[in-house]
């Protein structure tokens, strides 16, 4: 009898301990638009998730993720499933999840939602976050203008949305700060991910005289073409140095880990609050891969530019004219975030007609 009581007590102790541990453990869930094997956008988000878990401890954070979730009705279903399955915080990592995120957040007020690159926060449990990748593109522009012999760079763009236009403009402004006559050719691939097409776009740009290639699409194909043709290139989203050991100048690395760790920690501590974060180089969201394959003076110029931006300089500081020559920003005037997030025109000097 005594033995039974003891074991009962022991069992009860184990049980209560078990539930306590389960309560303290935060379940963080991620929805990705592409496969985590894309070595680009979704890959970097997943790396961030893993890093956050590592930082906070596997005993404290449980991860769950769904990859290749189409934007639209499917996303809503996936989100609801996640919310019901005990997720405490859900990260929706693509622009197109915006409406689904807000809709499901309304139904599950106790679950925290974090939506990447969007702007709608219709419920108090929805936050938005994004990174100022264009800061990195400004640095790339500086490097490109210093490294290019032809004075022409090629830009492989995905879709004409503000974020991409912002990147093209920042690159151009960086290049113009070194060489006011710098030329930029833009090719719209109209896809985020198609290695073959990205490679073809890179070939077209190089065949037409560009000797620096940069991209706002996700695969490493353009880097490989640049390596084959003997021109220099910038990586995208992740460090692509392996694909162009003698080619990559630097790469903008999406570094989501610190933000994810911070937000999951906030849920653990019970002090999560709605926020809208647009972090840049100064916050560690945008990291530049090592500056390689360039002379020391160019490296110095790149590092100085990076330091300037980290110190608070905005690439969009006037005087800046629009493509048609009309004035956009007066000398010393800085474009505010709202304007940048909705940017739909080119700055002067871009050799392309922006698709509307």
């Amino acid at each position: 009898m005594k033995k039974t009581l003891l074991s009962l007590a022991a069992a009860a102790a184990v049980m209560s301990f078990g539930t306590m541990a389960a309560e303290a453990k935060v379940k963080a869930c991620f929805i990705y638009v592409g496969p985590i094997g894309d070595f680009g956008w979704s890959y970097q988000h997943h790396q961030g998730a893993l890093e956050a878990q590592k930082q906070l401890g596997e005993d404290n954070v449980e991860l769950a993720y769904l990859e290749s979730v189409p934007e639209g009705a499917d996303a809503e279903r996936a989100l609801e499933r996640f919310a019901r399955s005990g997720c405490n915080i859900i990260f929706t990592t693509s622009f197109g999840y915006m409406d689904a995120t807000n809709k499901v957040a309304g139904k599950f007020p106790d679950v925290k939602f974090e939506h990447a690159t969007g702007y709608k926060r219709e419920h108090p449990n929805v936050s938005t976050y994004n990174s100022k990748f264009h800061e990195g593109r400004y640095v790339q522009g500086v490097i490109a203008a210093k490294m290019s012999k032809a004075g022409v760079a090629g830009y492989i763009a995905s879709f004409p949305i503000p974020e991409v236009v912002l990147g093209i403009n920042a690159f151009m402004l960086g290049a113009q700060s070194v060489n006011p006559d710098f030329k930029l050719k833009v090719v719209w691939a109209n896809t985020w991910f198609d290695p073959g097409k990205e490679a073809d776009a890179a070939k077209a740009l190089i065949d037409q005289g560009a000797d620096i290639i940069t991209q706002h699409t996700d695969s490493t194909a353009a880097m490989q073409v640049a390596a084959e043709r003997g021109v220099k290139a910038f990586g995208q989203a992740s460090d692509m140095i392996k694909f162009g050991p003698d080619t990559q100048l630097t790469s903008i690395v999406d570094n989501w880990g610190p933000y994810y760790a911070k937000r999951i920690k906030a849920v653990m501590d019970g002090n999560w609050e709605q926020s809208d974060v647009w972090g840049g180089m100064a916050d560690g969201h945008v990291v530049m891969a090592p500056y390689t394959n360039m002379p020391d003076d160019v490296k110095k110029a790149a590092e100085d530019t990076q330091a300037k931006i980290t110190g608070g300089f905005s690439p969009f500081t006037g005087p800046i004219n629009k493509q048609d020559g009309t004035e956009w920003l007066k000398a010393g005037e800085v474009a505010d975030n709202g304007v940048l997030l909705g940017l739909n025109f080119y700055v002067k000097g871009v050799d392309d007609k922006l698709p509307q």
Partner: protein
Amino acid sequence: MGVIEAILLTIATAATPLLIAAIGELVVERSGVLNLGVEGMMIMGAVTGFGVALLTGSPWLGMLGGIVVGALFSLLFGFLTLTLVTNQVATGLALTLLGLGLSGMLGESFVGQPGIRLPNLHIPVLSDLPFVGGLIFGQDPIFYVSIALTAGVAWFLFYTHAGLTLRSVGDNHASAHALGINVIGIRYLAVMFGGACAGLAGAYLSVVYTPQWVENMTAGRGWIALALVVFASWRPWRVLAGAYLFGAVTIGQLHAQALGLGIPSQLLSSLPYLATVVVLVLISQNKRLTMVNTPASLGRPFVPDR
């Protein structure tokens, strides 16, 4: 290297995987089987080609691996549709989905690793000739394989007895069966040939076109290959013309953009598809020609009566 030469070389690279996959599917459809799993077989070929090349260090073994796995993977389709007589459309779609998922799983450790590229042909003197040197004597070996494959299939289908037998199976399987032809056996072989071609086309993507592995890297090329077969009204040389037309419009629009001509890029991007639709419409004007070339038993299941 002049711009024109460069453009032509780029077009050849873009057209080659489409041509190879489409020629394979053409043979399958000529035997009366509709395999919508081209994309799935291609991606399996791509992951195998990349993996074998990386692990063995030989891009040639990679290509071979792609061919073998493509053929084996198509055998699954063959078993389901020919032996178990499942619905060909549904099974083909399932094959594509399975291939996309399975390849992602198999290739997980290959992500982010640069691959090994199959080197271009180089014949001393000939390859260095101006203009024609690079185009005729300096391309990747698979380019020549694709042309030879087209010629071989055209000859086989229309100038050999075996080819006639295969076409008869595709046109009227009941009559062919009554004549004592092994309908199921021939279809198995055709399906495997299609799988091998799709596998080779996939390996071409991951070993020649863009030597890397990423999930979903075929990006719909299997579907374009399927469309090309119809576009070409089941004639091999027209498949070649279609693949090169598609490649030319794709590459041409990229160059038009880089030139800064100011034509909306969305319109330019849709041009290859628009061109395909226009040609399809033109071809279907001639009803008799279409009737003659369409395999009459296409997609119809065959169960031999006992």
